[in-house]
């Protein structure tokens, strides 16, 4: 009668599709929640998943239900002191009387639906609708990398690749195949020998004994491991699409760039970095800072070390181009982000713009320029901005924006990388 079924191997995740639907349906609310989280978080923590709060009333499923008010009676257990006719003051704050201790200990968790997003889900919502410019080109990009992958076993190879287990299997099989007949003969002769001895046929026994010795010798010549047994692990090279990118961070660190502006720049760079890591398996970071001349530094010094001096933008661009040629000449998707307060003097802006247009941009997937204005109200455009604007008109893979407040960084970033809609 009883049927016992072990469902454990069936695996979990039957609800995954419904969970996915829930996330999709309340995308707007969840995005809002994620946005709030970003405001509260440090950039270092940005990549983790997290708990999302969505107002309960936004996701409630309505139905006809009794509201508060009207006359009603209800029965409760656990009466201790009440007798018929007692009057109990209504609990404060609620029209209906629950008459119970239910209100305690719930607090504000009642009006928010809280759940956690995994890191992937978080990042997907975070970067939702953003598209990496010119990604199409990268996807088709020349496949110069080859990866060595396992491909079964081969009969030839170098000793280092010897597959021992496989070889022994072969050897066992061969020995069984070759030795089977002999073994049977030996068994039969042994039986005959015993009979001969028992009967007393001395001659016969001696002949069988010799024969047995001959067969035993023959059996002995089957080697334990023979040349045909050997098997080697086989590997073949398979071409792989390039999935690596280099990201150049260029920043003006002259005295006019204060800590606030650097913080803005850092946020911008971090966002770009996170974004690139989602698209590419491998992302190299290059930090180039400049005053009146440029140098390559590590991340820490890039953001925190102060230097004094003038401003020559061109120096940074030239250094970036030099590094690109040396290290990332081919097989890399190169992106660059430049942050500056826009101060530049003399012929520098015009020369920088020309260098950018003629040398750098053709080799780049995308180049973004972020101008860190003192305040959003100042409409005064810098000379660098004016020059770059002309570059922007001429090239597709160049974009520029201005930001002055922390909150603006994310919108600016979104704006720069939003999906191109027809």
């Amino acid at each position, binding site marked *: 009668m009883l049927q016992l079924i072990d469902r454990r191997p069936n695996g979990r995740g039957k609800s995954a599709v419904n969970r996915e639907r829930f996330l999709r349906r309340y995308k707007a609310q969840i995005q809002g929640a994620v946005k709030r989280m970003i405001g509260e978080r440090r950039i270092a923590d940005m990549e983790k998943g997290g708990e999302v709060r969505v107002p309960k009333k936004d996701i409630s499923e309505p139905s006809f239900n009794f509201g508060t008010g009207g006359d009603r009676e209800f*029965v409760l257990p656990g009466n201790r002191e*009440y007798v018929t006719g007692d009057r109990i003051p209504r609990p404060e704050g609620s029209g209906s009387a629950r008459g119970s201790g239910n209100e305690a200990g719930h607090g504000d968790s009642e009006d928010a639906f809280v759940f956690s997003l995994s890191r992937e889900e978080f990042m997907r919502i975070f970067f939702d609708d953003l598209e990496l410019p010119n990604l199409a080109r990268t996807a088709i990009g020349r496949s110069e990398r080859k990866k060595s992958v396992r491909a079964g076993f081969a009969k030839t190879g170098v000793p280092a690749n010897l597959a021992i287990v496989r070889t022994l299997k072969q050897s066992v099989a061969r020995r069984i195949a070759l030795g089977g007949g002999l073994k049977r003969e030996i068994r039969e002769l042994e039986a005959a020998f015993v009979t001969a001895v028992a009967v007393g046929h001395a001659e016969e026994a001696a002949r069988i004994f010799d024969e047995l010795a001959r067969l035993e010798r023959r059996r002995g010549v089957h080697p334990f491991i023979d040349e045909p047994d050997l098997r080697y692990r086989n590997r073949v090279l398979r071409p792989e699409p390039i999935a690596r990118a280099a990201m150049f961070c260029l920043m003006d660190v002259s005295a006019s760039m204060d800590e606030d502006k650097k913080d803005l720049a850092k946020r911008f760079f971090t966002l770009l970095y996170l974004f690139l890591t989602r698209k590419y398996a491998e992302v190299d970071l290059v930090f180039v800072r400049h005053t009146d001349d440029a140098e390559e530094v590590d991340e820490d010094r890039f953001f925190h070390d102060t230097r004094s001096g003038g401003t020559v933008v061109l120096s940074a661009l030239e250094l970036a181009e030099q590094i690109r040629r040396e290290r990332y000449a081919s097989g890399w998707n190169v992106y660059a982000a430049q942050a500056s307060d826009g101060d530049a003097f003399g012929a520098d802006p015009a020369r920088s713009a020309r260098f950018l247009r003629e040398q750098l941009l053709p080799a780049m997937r995308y180049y973004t320029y972020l101008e860190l204005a003192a305040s959003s109200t100042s409409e005064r455009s810098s000379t660098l901005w004016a020059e770059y604007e002309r570059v922007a008109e001429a090239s597709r893979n160049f974009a520029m924006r201005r930001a002055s407040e922390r909150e603006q960084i994310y919108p600016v970033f979104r704006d720069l990388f939003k999906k191109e809609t027809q």
Partner: protein
Amino acid sequence: MSAISAISRGADWDFDLLERYDTEISRIARGHGLDTYPNQIEVITSEQMLDAYASSGLPVGYPHWSYGKEFIRNEQAYRRGMQGLAYEIVINSSPCIAYLMEENTIATQALVIAHASYGHNSFFKGNHLFRQWTAADAILDYLVFARRYVMQCEERHGATAVEEVLDACHALMPHGVDRYRRPAPLTLKAEAARLAEREAHRERQFNDLWRTVPEARAENKPEVNAAFPQDPQENVLYFVEKYSPRLEPWERELVRIVRKLAQYFYPQAQTKVMNEGWATFWHYTIMNQLHEERLVDDGFMLEFLKNHTNVIAQPGFDSPVYGGLNPYALGFAVFSDLKRICESPEAEDREWFPDIAGGDWNKVLDFAMRNFKDESFIAQYLSPRLMREFHLFALADHTNEDAIVVDSIHDDHGYRRVRKLLAQQHAQESRVPDVQVVRFDRDGDRSLTLRHQRRRGRPLTEAAGEVVKHLRRLWGFTVRLETWENDIRFSDVVECPA
């Protein structure tokens, strides 16, 4: 000596053991006359249990975001340790499927087998509501069909369109059940026979005198009632499915699927106390008998008793962990009390339950299980003794009073009143407001009018407006919701124009 014949020792379980326990439990259950569907026991992990929770325990369900929400809610609560998982889930189907969690010890597994596979199972098979409203051998196939159909619709018409229809249906789900069977449509033959019978009746009663009676003049004739439907319809989803002017055929089928599911769950909501009480009573009885027969050792019994007492705990209303009347506790108490009344009745019992006091408890319990629902079960069988044990008392919360008044308590004057109020509390009417379709303006603007029959001034929540919007989506034309009480229509009408 006691442990020599025990089926198992220790906490671990394996499939052979489960089968041996099932054999013994089955023997005892049959001995008490429990009639069940065949059993199917499935062992699952806690993650799978969470999955099963989200779909109301059903093994197959159509995809919908609300199940995702439910899943996330449960998962979150479970992860934070705010909520434990049930030991089992049982599905009213034939064979009756019970899920056992792999984390359970053998004592718990045996308890669950007795509880679900024999307690609930026999209730599903015996109780009149389940017999009337659910087809246990067809439900699994129907679920598979529903899932496939919904997914096909999503492919053809887009997930958003399907979701909109399902959302609307879910909002009306409590109003998508028949509470009384519709008469089966007559066959052509039966119809003809009935006509012939009427004709014959008229011939027998023929009296030419009637012809001479003058007819009423035209203006005095009662107006032909053009209103449709003739009588208010309480199954709103059914009405939508049959008469909605705008629904596509596939949308109608979706409405039907949700309606069928609502109907399938309808008996469960009506018999929570009885169903759980019945299952709890039987696991308690069966486990004790196993122990008496020395088939389980004392360690097993102690663990069982711990679980059992957890299940039937009833904290008082002022306890911080109070969460309403525990259906397990109440149901178990009533069934156990019935058994006591049969076996050792006291004077009070003879006065209150003259029919059953001193009777055969197996028969009395079987009758109670088959023929009642929570409301009538409590009204019939809650004894004064139990009211005293639970310290039940009734409060009245009336708008014209500035305080809550203790209406009646567990004393001689209050027994009947408390019992009546508790029974009403478990009635369908006190959970689901009375909203019915009263008018479909077929020849006019095709608008649909619902009537909320308000009782004792209890209003609907504001969500009613949202529900009307959902209904408007299904109906396609104006939908309005009127509120009536004592034949007086209130002015606040929720209307959602076409």
